[in-house]
């Protein structure tokens, strides 16, 4: 690694893409205008569970409205991983027979403007026979519950269990036993830019073309080919600037398939842009979990066993390609987290309900898994009379044990977990907070401090993901790197930035090796026609796998350039190297621009044995071990709880994170800040309540609270940098961790603040109402105890 260069790996380079973003010159789906383009609005189900008897279209709109009956030759979206016992669901593109959630698409309306399309949608009426809705994942398991898919016989997509030497008789003698029950709300992902799709036929290239706001153009291409029954080669997916994804754009959407079908049918470009109401009413699709978890420990706080039952409210269908199995599968897999213990039992289930299909949000299930295990660690600390961090320290992997395989075989690649925790304890000033807590606050608020520690498996490799049973198993990432005739560098990658700054960080990788002026390196992405096939950007994988591919291709390109450069310099090819954009042989050098001109414009001057592959290389990358990288972090929070209003204010927030080698520390800080803000939202604000009929109740942003700038404290990020032994440059995946740690740390801090009142809160979000209710309950209990 070359920390000395200003633009190479490790440099906090300003982001190339920000020039256009900050000037309002970004190009999102909504910025495309095609001649003759028409607009689409959808008729969505107003009820959660019903038999659809008829769709009534007024005669004058018959040609402008499409229903399931029109959709001939289109396959439903099926995402059924080949896991034993997984129950298949087929998501119809337009509802037919039965409706399974509010917001499910029933009809598609087309007009010259969106407003007119909405007028038409409003004129379409539905004959519905309402059915009792399944809205609670635990009630859904009771005998006699209504069924989302009758043919299943129950409401379980799949269940998982893990048992490692768990013996009830052995663990029950443990001196400390703690139990927690935790329920977390569904919420929305709320990227700044919603989904959006334009579909048109490119008659010159004979390509059905979609401009769509997606995290993975090639997976959309594959899914679309399956649904429409046409070849990959007939489909082009362009994903332009994407204003945030977080998993929300990590699936094949019904809308993408529908617009692709529609443009073929009506033979003009068609567009649909998701609006805020559609996002809220039809797409509250993440984070709803339930845990019952027991922890067993010695008197000194050493963990003996964990026993857990987890449930995920997976909604009505299985999303493509990630499937409804993933979150539930992660619970037994990731719950042990960073801790050492010897007896483990965990069962989990993905439960079908009459809600929209769940999809993995930044951090996937880890956020709530971290919340559950950390609640247990705090409870053990309380029983053992120890500081919570002390209990964690006693149960951690020591640096000399690295690499370490935990109880479920997760392979921690490197790092110093205890040091990360200690740094956070110092940075949050634990001792000072404890002193402050010994005296009442002048404003009557209660101060609390809490922390969470977690490992973040990222950049999972092919073998790990194959075991998940995905319909599309990510392979080995490729990049295409070329030197142009002007001596500039073009990089084409199949990953797709939706805010991560890949145009900058991938250019830094290319610059590190090719040393061409940073301004002359351009990264292209987001177009299936011009980039290597890739499962693209999700799961904190792009910098490790995509960055690795750019490095590999750049090295091969450097080699070819050096060969030509050596010939031009009349030097021995083995004696030259590349520096400052030149091929250098001793005291003489030739610029890569001249090398490029020699290859492209004057090839007759080159020797006959020159590599005819030229100055363009496509090469792939495979990490030395593909079990994923293991970033880890401590999040620590200081909060003030107002016991009269239930309002929580975050006074301080520290993140100490080891993401391995940081390609661009400034971008990493941004990733952590953004993730942490989302974690704060998950913990304190975001919730889509549903009524007993499955109606989502927060239909505008007045009711659905997102944290804003004023709710996010100054997040203090401290880095450790232990390179991964298995990846290019030692990079680890870290895009999600910011969103994993905050709820556990804040819940811990709030409960620390409430400790004098003898009450705790665990369900998310922590609302003023839930905090006040807990305080009331504590008072009642105290009165009962006193009388």
């Amino acid at each position, binding site marked *: 690694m070359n920390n000395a260069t200003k633009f190479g790996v490790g440099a906090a380079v300003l982001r190339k893409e920000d020039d256009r973003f900050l000037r309002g010159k970004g190009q999102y789906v909504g910025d495309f205008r095609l001649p003759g383009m028409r607009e689409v609005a959808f008729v969505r189900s107003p009820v959660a569970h019903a038999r659809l008897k008829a769709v009534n279209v007024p005669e004058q709109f018959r040609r402008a409205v499409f229903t399931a009956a029109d959709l001939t030759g289109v396959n439903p979206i099926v995402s059924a991983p080949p896991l034993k016992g997984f129950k298949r669901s087929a998501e119809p593109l337009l509802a037919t027979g039965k409706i399974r959630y509010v917001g499910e698409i029933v009809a598609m309306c087309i007009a010259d403007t969106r407003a007119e399309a909405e007028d038409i949608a409003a004129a379409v009426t539905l004959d519905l026979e309402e059915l009792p809705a399944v809205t609670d994942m635990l009630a859904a398991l009771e005998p006699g519950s209504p069924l989302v898919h009758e043919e299943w016989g129950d409401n379980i997509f799949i269940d998982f269990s893990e048992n490692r030497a768990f013996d009830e008789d052995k663990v029950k003698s443990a001196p400390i036993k703690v139990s927690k029950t935790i329920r977390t709300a569904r919420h929305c992902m709320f990227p700044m830019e919603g989904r959006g799709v334009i579909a048109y036929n490119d008659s010159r290239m004979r390509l059905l073309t979609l401009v769509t706001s997606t995290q993975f153009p090639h997976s959309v291409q594959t899914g679309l080919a399956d649904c429409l029954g046409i070849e990959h080669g007939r489909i082009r997916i362009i994903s332009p600037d994407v204003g945030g994804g977080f998993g929300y754009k990590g699936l094949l959407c019904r809308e993408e398939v529908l617009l692709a079908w529609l443009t073929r049918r009506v033979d003009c470009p068609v567009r649909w842009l998701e*609006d805020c109401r559609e996002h809220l009413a039809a797409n509250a699709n993440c984070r709803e979990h339930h845990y019952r978890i027991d922890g067993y420990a010695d008197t000194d706080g050493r963990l003996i066993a964990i026993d857990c039952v987890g449930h995920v409210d997976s909604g009505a269908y299985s999303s493509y390609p990630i499937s409804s199995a993933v979150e539930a599968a992660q619970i037994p897999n990731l719950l042990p987290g960073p801790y050492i213990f010897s007896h483990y039992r965990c069962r989990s289930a993905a439960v079908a309900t009459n809600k929209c299909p769940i999809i993995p949000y930044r951090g996937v299930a880890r956020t709530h898994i971290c919340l559950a295990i950390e609640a247990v660690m705090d409870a053990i600390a309380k029983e053992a009379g120890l500081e919570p961090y002390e209990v964690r320290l006693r149960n951690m992997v020591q640096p000399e044990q690295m690499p370490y395989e935990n109880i479920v075989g997760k392979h921690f690649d490197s790092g110093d977990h205890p040091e990360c925790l200690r740094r956070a304890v110092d940075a949050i000033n634990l001792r000072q907070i404890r002193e402050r807590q010994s005296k009442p606050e002048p404003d009557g608020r209660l101060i609390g401090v809490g922390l969470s520690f977690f490992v973040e498996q990222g950049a999972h490799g092919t073998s790990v993901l194959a075991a998940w049973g995905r319909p599309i198993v990510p392979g080995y990432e490729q990049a295409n790197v070329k030197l142009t005739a002007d001596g500039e560098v073009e990089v084409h990658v199949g990953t797709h930035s939706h805010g991560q700054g890949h145009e900058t960080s991938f250019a830094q990788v290319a610059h590190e090796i090719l040393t061409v002026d940073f301004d002359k390196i351009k990264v292209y992405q987001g177009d299936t026609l011009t980039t290597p096939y890739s499962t693209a950007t999700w799961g904190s994988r792009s910098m490790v796998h995509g960055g690795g591919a750019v490095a590999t291709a750049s090295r091969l390109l450097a080699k070819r350039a050096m060969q030509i450069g050596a010939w031009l310099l009349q030097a021995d090819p083995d004696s030259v190297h590349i520096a400052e954009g030149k091929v250098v042989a001793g005291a003489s050098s030739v610029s890569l621009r001249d090398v490029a001109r020699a290859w492209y414009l004057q090839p007759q001057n080159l020797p006959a044995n020159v590599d005819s592959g030229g100055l363009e290389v496509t090469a792939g990358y495979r990490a030395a071990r593909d079990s994923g990288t293991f970033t880890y972090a401590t999040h620590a929070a200081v909060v003030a709880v107002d016991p009269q*209003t239930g309002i929580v204010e975050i006074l301080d927030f520290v993140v100490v994170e080891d993401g391995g080698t940081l390609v661009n520390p400034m971008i990493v800080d941004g990733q952590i800040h953004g993730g942490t803000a989302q974690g704060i939202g998950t913990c304190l604000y975001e919730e889509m309540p549903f009524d007993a009929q499955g109606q989502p109740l927060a239909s505008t942003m007045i009711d659905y609270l997102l944290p804003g700038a004023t709710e996010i404290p100054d997040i203090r990020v401290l880095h450790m940098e232990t390179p991964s032994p298995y990846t290019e440059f030692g990079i680890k995946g870290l895009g999600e961790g910011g969103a994993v740690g905050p709820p556990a740390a804040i819940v811990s801090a709030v409960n620390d603040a409430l400790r004098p009142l003898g009450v705790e809160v665990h369900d998310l979000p922590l609302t003023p109402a839930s905090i006040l209710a807990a305080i009331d309950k504590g008072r009642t209990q105290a009165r009962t105890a006193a009388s």
Partner: protein
Amino acid sequence: MKPAAFEFVRPASLTEAARVLGQGNGGARPVAGCQSLGPMLNLRLATPRVLVDLTGIPELAQVTDNGDSVTIGACVTTAYIEDARLPGRGLEALARIARNIAYRAVRNRGTIGGSLCHADPAADWVSTLCVFGAQCIVFSERGRRRIAADQFVLGAYENALQPGEILEAIEIPRLSARGRWGYYKVCRKAGEFASALGAVIDDEASGRLRAVIGATHGRPIVVADARTLLRQDATLDENAVLALLDRHNVSDPAARHQQVAALSRAYQQAKQA
């Protein structure tokens, strides 16, 4: 989220506006800053046939100094008030309250009259104008009438305007030099509507000791003589506040805690100011 089609008119005089609204037979709606009606149009919760934009009427943007009161045109923006452009003294509270209403972008367009007419129980102007004992000046082709602010707001999203009537201005009495005020709202995040709201003015010179509990599910709870909420030692009696909340059917436990806290804090501010 596009509004259903409507006709748009922007009259230049109150008479013309009142005529158009009167002819609308309930199908015409007045609009000024469009910060409340706008979203309702987009959600198609409101589908007026005619939208009557009042911002082209010069007198609705006027501010008049009457000595011991100020008359503020209904279309004066919250940002105008926030920027302390009201003349004279004794209404500083309004600028301070304005500063915490929604976000600047909303305040730039949102008007005091629009907010009052919309009558969202959680809106700051609704509670503020009630605690100040402001008078609403209502125009119609038949003439003008005055309605006290706490009589103007009839309930959640319900005001006292009759067909063809337009809120023209609001007259707000100044506090005297020794007058004190307190205002506290409980919000989960900055700029959101309050979940509880307490407002107090204590002005011996004018004999006013008024309190308001706002952000309930109905019209503000106005206590014209707040001494009824005080103990003998002039501290706020929380039980009296709870009894008041009982009388107004505020039964949600969290809301009761927050309302008591909000009014206590507003009262403390007024005492300490």
